[in-house]
């Protein structure tokens, strides 16, 4: 029994037409063709950015069998892609799969969506009865390693968009946002994106103030039935009962001044106020952020944090690589032992509760809404 892999990814430089053909074929169709060709165990991972076939072959030369997989892909692509394909077996194939599930092979390092996609690729194959001992174990293992890499290293730490950083900071100030009320100034596209982000944290209240009330109402309706549009001239008074202000208007001058904030503070009884200014030019006076209990973040501040998170993830790649390598080695050793007819078992990380994830990988794909994800399909 040998694990084989034939695949293409975003780095492979395949013509767009061929890529479209492959995406259109879909995992189910590939599984069907694989079965017709006599394969008994196979999992197909098909996303916008990759097509990979993991298969187990009992007999024959791995090289020949890999050639068969390559021809199958080429037929579906309708174009010669042979030179771009990567063909791997055994340890190398396992290492690749673990790297993929850990997000190391993704465009955005450590992104979460791929883990869910690995899981659903496995589930699709499982439902089609195309999995058996080897594919069952390697895929459950891959999900486990993907989780462990994210838990033990920083490859998926930190948010990668301005809106999600802002939401994360709001949580550092208020804890959960369930008791927090949000006020959005402006009704443009940025306001909408950031508003959606804050909404996913379920604030108690979301109000939108826009110079044209109708446009504000439209955004409120688009965002959530709980969102509420308010008159522009009323917004300074609302500062008393607002915890998070998100400013994104097209105004040439600051619309929220230090004086407005200052006069709202006594009624707030010391509760923190988080001001997010993602407008260009700025909407909120810098001096407002100097007040006690007021935290002001601008677009530049948030972008700075995004950049920092990005480079921090990159620094964690080698640590995650080591983990992937060790786990692939463990798997290859296990497979060799099984082949030799020995009793062998794959150890889990001692004392880790991640074991649960392996039996029932539910919720694996729970990517944070709006995070940049590589493999959205």
């Amino acid at each position, binding site marked *: 029994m040998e694990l084989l892999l034939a695949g293409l990814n975003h780095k492979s430089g395949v013509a767009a037409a061929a890529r479209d053909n492959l995406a259109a074929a879909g995992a189910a169709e590939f599984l069907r063709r694989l079965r017709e060709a006599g394969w008994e165990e196979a999992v197909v991972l098909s996303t916008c950015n990759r097509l990979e076939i993991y298969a187990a072959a009992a007999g024959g030369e791995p090289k020949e069998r890999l050639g068969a997989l390559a021809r199958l892909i080429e037929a579906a692509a309708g174009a010669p892609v042979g030179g771009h394909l990567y063909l791997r077996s055994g340890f190398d194939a396992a290492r690749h799969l673990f790297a993929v599930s850990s997000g190391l092979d993704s465009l955005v390092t450590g992104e979460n969506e791929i883990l869910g996609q690995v899981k659903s690729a496995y589930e699709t194959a499982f439902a089609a009865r195309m999995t058996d001992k080897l594919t069952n174990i390697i895929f459950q293992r891959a999900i486990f390693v993907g989780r462990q890499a994210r838990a033990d290293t920083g490859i998926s*730490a930190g948010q990668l968009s301005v809106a999600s950083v802002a939401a*994360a900071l709001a949580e550092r100030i*208020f804890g959960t946002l369930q008791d927090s009320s949000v006020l959005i100034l402006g009704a443009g596209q940025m306001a909408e994106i950031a508003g959606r982000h804050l909404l996913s944290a379920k604030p108690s209240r979301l109000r939108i103030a826009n110079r044209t009330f109708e446009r504000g109402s439209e955004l409120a309706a688009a965002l959530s039935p709980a969102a509420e549009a308010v008159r522009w001239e009323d917004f300074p008074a609302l500062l008393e009962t607002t915890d998070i202000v998100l400013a994104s208007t097209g105004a040439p001058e600051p619309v929220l001044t230090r004086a407005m904030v200052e006069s709202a503070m006594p009624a707030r009884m*010391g509760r923190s106020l988080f001001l997010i200014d993602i407008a260009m030019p700025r909407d909120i006076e810098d001096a407002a952020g100097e007040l006690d209990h007021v935290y002001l973040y601008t677009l530049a501040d948030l972008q700075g944090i995004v950049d920092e998170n990005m480079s921090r993830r990159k620094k964690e790649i080698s640590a995650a690589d080591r983990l992937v390598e060790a786990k692939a080695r463990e798997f290859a050793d296990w497979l060799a032992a099984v082949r030799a007819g020995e009793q062998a078992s794959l150890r889990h990380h001692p004392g880790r509760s991640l074991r649960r994830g392996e039996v029932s990988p539910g919720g694996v794909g729970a990517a944070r809404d709006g995070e940049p994800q590589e493999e959205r399909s």
Partner: protein
Amino acid sequence: MMESVLFQIASALYVAGTGLGFVYLYNRDERLSRWMHNLLAVGVVFHLASSGIRLKHFWDIPENRWYLPVNSFFGALSAMALAITATFVVVEGRHRLGILGAFVLPWACLAALGGVFRVHSMGDTEIYGLAPALQSYWMNIHPLVIMVAYAVFGNAFGVGVALLVQERQLRSKRPQELCYRLPSIEELDTLNYRLVAAGFPVLTVGIIMGGIWAHNAWGRFWGWDAKETWSLITALVYAVFLHQRLVKGWRGRKAVYTSMLGFACVVFTFVGVNFLSRLHGYLSAR
């Protein structure tokens, strides 16, 4: 002998647990937090064993029978370390706030190490007969109640430090990972408030009990002894904290500074006053 050995093991475990607490600040491995709690819990067990032996030796002196052995500085330090650690294990353990260990536990370590230092400088664990005035059931209540209040205030102080750190992080505009590990500003603020709100009535009741005891033992309710005075100051500072918070909405830094001032008074009442007070001096009595 055995008592001091066990006490020193407990102290070492507290110090080791606190060390892990500091490492945990910068390393998100959950095992660190778990081991910190384990070490502290084992430390508490050793500490209780040590206290049991202490109690036995203390009760071997006939007039001490059934009274708590906290009439000496060592006894008080030991009880203090135990109270702070136990409060931490219960409060922060339950809320899964192991991250606060680095802020709260140094006080437990300080008390424990003070005890270790005291044992070495005195040569023993200071077990001696109670002065006649102290031979009262109040001996088991008054110091205990006060110490519970102090331990709670010690925890509040640690939470306050964490709040200042978190505020700094957020104001820097470049929050480090620590920012994402610490509880939020509002959570820390609420916890600080709740701890003080819990400790204040306990302290007040403890002081009043002290007054009643003083009335029974010395014939007066209040005598402006240094400890009495300073405990009153402590209570007043915390009363200001609670009043300002509830009425004026003092939160964040201002509230933390007040709570910290209160704890400075606690420390002074607990340690410094020994050199001033004739009646309450662990160091002057004997």
